[in-house]
């Protein structure tokens, strides 16, 4: 299955969240891969702690593959090449976890040529043969990467795909997420242009809220009553807004709480971070775990 991760605004937590989903899914026993399609800023390696490709690979990654300069993009077995002790060595029962980084110094493309599109179709169909889950991290906003993903999936009718739209829990983000899906030249409009059925495409899009601070979270214990009341009121308004914009509970696949570790560093959160060093919150891991299951759980994707 292909899963596309997109957000309207930058810095929403799209990459960190989707990397953690991939990691959780691998731990759950699936073969997974992560494709860095954020062509303007190929830095996925950092999240997986593969320092040799922290800023993209020098051995020919996504960019050079799409330019037709190599047959197979550089692939990294995270269980082997990660610098983090806790990630090295595939745990028993876990699946493959492979990272396809962009090129070091690679930039956003100026268009999607027919050749690039064909290469994309070939890449997707080959990876689908091998992996249970291929997560494609597109960049923020309307991009050639997103356009290519829409066009390629339209040409691969047999390959299941799903879209995750990431947004933070704020007014601006909610409106933007709605616009990215339903707005002018949004995913649905562009999808239809490339041959998707609008309703079917819409059924394959869900929202993910990132870095959510619940008004009654433990972190907020020390707040004054007036502040708490205000937060509750904000949250109520946001829920109302989200519902109005079709970004509400029903269209939401999951939400990830604000996590102190992620606020400071983009990384995978291991069970060890929760259990032994206790730097990360158990709720965060639980949320990632839950999302990783829901992504492939058909009942979570029934038509709305």
């Amino acid at each position, binding site marked *: 299955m292909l899963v596309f991760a997109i957000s309207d605004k930058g810095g929403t937590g799209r990459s960190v969240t989707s990397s953690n989903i991939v990691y959780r899914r691998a731990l759950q026993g699936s073969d997974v891969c992560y494709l860095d399609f954020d*062509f303007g800023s190929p830095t996925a390696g950092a999240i997986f702690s593969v320092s040799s490709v922290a800023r993209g690979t020098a051995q020919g990654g996504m960019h050079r593959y799409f330019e037709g300069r190599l*047959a197979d993009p550089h692939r990294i077995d995270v269980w082997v090449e990660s610098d983090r002790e806790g990630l090295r060595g595939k745990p028993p029962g876990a699946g493959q976890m492979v990272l396809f980084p962009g090129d070091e110094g690679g930039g*956003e493309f100026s268009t999607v040529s027919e050749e690039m599109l*064909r290469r994309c179709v070939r890449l997707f169909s080959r990876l689908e043969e091998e992996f249970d889950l291929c997560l494609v991290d597109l960049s923020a906003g309307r991009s050639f990467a997103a356009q290519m993903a829409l066009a390629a999936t339209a040409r691969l009718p047999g390959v299941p795909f799903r879209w995750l739209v990431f947004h933070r829990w704020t007014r601006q983000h909610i409106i933007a997420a709605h616009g990215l899906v339903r707005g002018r030249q949004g995913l649905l409009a562009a999808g239809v242009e490339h041959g998707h059925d609008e309703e079917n495409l819409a059924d394959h899009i869900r929202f993910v809220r990132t870095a959510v601070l619940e008004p009654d979270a433990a972190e907020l214990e020390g707040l004054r009553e007036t502040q708490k009341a205000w937060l509750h009121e904000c949250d109520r308004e946001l829920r109302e807004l989200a519902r109005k914009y079709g970004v509400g509970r029903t269209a939401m696949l999951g939400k990830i709480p604000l996590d102190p570790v992620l606020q400071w560093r983009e990384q995978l959160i291991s069970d060890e971070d929760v259990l032994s060093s206790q730097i990360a919150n158990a709720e965060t891991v639980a949320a990632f775990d839950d999302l990783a299951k829901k992504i492939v759980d058909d009942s979570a994707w029934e038509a709305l």
Partner: protein
Amino acid sequence: MTPAQAVFGEVEAERRVASAPLSHVSIELGHLYMEDFQAGPDRLREQFRQVAPWAETMRRSWQARVPGGRARVSTCFLIDDYFSRFSTPAELVPAVLEAAAECDLTIDYLARESACAETDGVKLARLVEDRLVTDPPAGTNGSRPPVTETGWLCNGARSPYGGAVQAMESARAWEPPAQNAKRRHSIFVDVELWDSDSRGRTWSCPFLAAVWQLLRLGLIRNDGELPVRPVPGGPPFPSDWEELPAIVQLNPAAAPFSAYSTMSVLSSRFLPVELAVRTILSQVFVDAEVLRQVAGRSAGEGVPLPDELVDRISYVFLGA
């Protein structure tokens, strides 16, 4: 046969390839387009008058080459009914035959150009297109699909064009196209094989001409069978082109239609077309078994053939 091979000797696992009867040379006496026809019967007569001595020369040279002088020479004539339909067989064919006879030429076979696109449900042009193996520019290592512009075929590397560039990448300077087998300087040829519109695909004149050459060389097979066989015929001719067989054998005593080699006598306005034809033919991969058959038979007759197809084709180009 060893037992191991016997196990695999199932019918469907074997490959059978029919062989074509072959002359030594197939001479094309002319190729009639609407504009020639519209120019009137004198134009045709003039054409045949110019062709006759060359055809005779070809015949003699083969007689001299073949032991005992028993050269098999057949002649053919192609009428365009693909790009434009004009007149009717009933009207046109007798006129052509008459004009040829006046110049002491016998037309053994008459063919319709549309037959090169499709005959009896066999898509000949498609068969040939599938067998194109593009001439690789230096540096082609198989890692990428062959560079093709759909519907075009060239003899080298095209000048790189726009395409996708990465943001903030330095701009690319213009580069010339290059011929693969150049001798220092290039003669770059890019041939349009077909175009298409709402009614479907239209094959280009050079592409059909390439199919025509392959037919005359007896090198096309469909599922191991000969895709077109000449059908004996004579007057009266039908009033509809569709009813005329793809290749009509007009002379019952003619040598076989296909031949080891071909010769075409053409107006020099066809020079660019034939350059395109050679560009195409030099990239057609003919079934190795068929090539072996033909080579074996010609060698058996004491007339060794050049390995390369394009070397089996010769032309005489006539000025206006």
